[in-house]
């Protein structure tokens, strides 16, 4: 059952997918459904002995193709709609124990090619208004499978957070004539205190207004609307900067850091987002220390107002040192 219910108080859709209650939850490594299928072994999601990068439709999708009109009709005030869309799983590698941070720049670059291809293919579907590429990593985030993978939700609407960001960017463009994200990036470059990694075409920084202690944003220097608009050099550089940031994250506390990684980019609803949508990646690690998490509690969840106990300038300094130390160990020159 996939249905959407409209919340008129927040003016947003909520997706209901009751079959997800029964999804696979932290199986033993030898029964991982995302591993390749070994001869004589149990059949996994991938019917091959080896693979490079694989994408498949989620067995327990939050949104699905060809869903019927919901039985629950709702009212004029609280309408319902079919939970139309596509939910995909992206397997980064056939190595069960790998992480994105541990992968080569080349593999990350190949993954960027796959993400770009999925953006183009899913975004071309008539019902899809927004292609949301993301990764939940670590049990602290609630992952149910440890195999290195991300997900893609192709929504039939522009989801609230990107929508709010795009509305702010459009209003900024109307008043200033410029791109909000380009100007934020210029400000971060000029200030420098929150910058953590720089490439030729991408920069990573902890934003002035970070909502998580080690939240990092990776911005394209050029105002590219989507991942599919990046050229070859930009894709390579994104891979380099992502790798640098990720090894720094893992060096922060001496363990593989949990995080949510999300990509914000142009909707695919036919509207013009030139100078409004600016492709970027956002990371939200939940840790504020090695053993303490930032919880979304009363103020954050009930009021939507984040309260932070550490300044972005401090965490950026710590993360920058972790990145440099990890890069030194890997024998990598700072970009």
């Amino acid at each position: 059952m996939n249905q959407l219910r409209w919340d008129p108080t927040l003016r947003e859709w909520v997706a209901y997918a009751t079959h997800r209650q029964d999804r696979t939850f932290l199986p033993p490594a030898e029964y991982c459904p995302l591993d390749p299928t070994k001869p004589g072994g149990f059949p996994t999601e991938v019917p091959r002995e080896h693979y490079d990068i694989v994408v498949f439709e989620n067995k327990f999708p939050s949104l699905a193709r060809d869903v019927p009109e919901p039985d629950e009709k709702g009212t004029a005030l609280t309408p319902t709609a079919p939970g139309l869309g596509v939910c995909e799983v992206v397997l980064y590698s056939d190595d069960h124990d790998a992480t994105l941070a541990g992968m080569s720049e080349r593999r990350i670059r190949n993954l960027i090619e796959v993400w770009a291809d999925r953006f183009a293919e899913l975004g071309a579907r008539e019902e899809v208004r927004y292609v949301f590429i993301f990764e939940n990593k670590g049990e602290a985030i609630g992952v149910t499978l440890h195999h290195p993978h991300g997900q893609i939700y192709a929504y039939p609407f522009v989801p609230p957070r990107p929508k709010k960001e795009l509305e702010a960017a459009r209003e900024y463009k109307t008043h200033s004539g410029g791109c909000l994200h380009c100007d934020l990036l210029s400000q971060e470059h000029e200030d420098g205190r929150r910058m953590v990694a720089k490439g030729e075409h991408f920069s990573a920084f902890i934003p002035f207004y970070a909502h998580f202690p080690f939240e990092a944003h990776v911005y394209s220097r050029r105002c590219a609307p989507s991942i599919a608009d990046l050229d070859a050099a930009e894709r390579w550089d994104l891979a380099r900067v992502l790798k640098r940031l990720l090894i720094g994250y893992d060096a922060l506390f001496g363990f593989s850091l949990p995080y949510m990684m999300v990509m914000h980019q142009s909707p695919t609803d036919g509207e013009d987002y030139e100078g409004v949508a600016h492709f970027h990646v956002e990371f939200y690690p939940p840790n504020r220390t090695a053993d303490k998490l930032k919880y979304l509690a009363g103020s954050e969840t009930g009021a939507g107002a984040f309260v932070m106990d550490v300044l972005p300038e401090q965490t950026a300094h710590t993360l920058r040192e972790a990145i440099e130390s990890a890069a030194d160990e890997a024998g990598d020159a700072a970009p």
Partner: protein
Amino acid sequence: MSAKNLGAAGGEKIPRHLEMVKEREPKEDGRYIIFYTCEGETEEEVED
């Protein structure tokens, strides 16, 4: 093609900077699976 805004991608084949093979197969339950394989390059052959 619809008037959907897909930037440079245009909803068609993305410009490929790599020679990646894309194989799409149906699964038994009606879902699809896509194998992306980078041709001619392996992790071992290239040093980052």
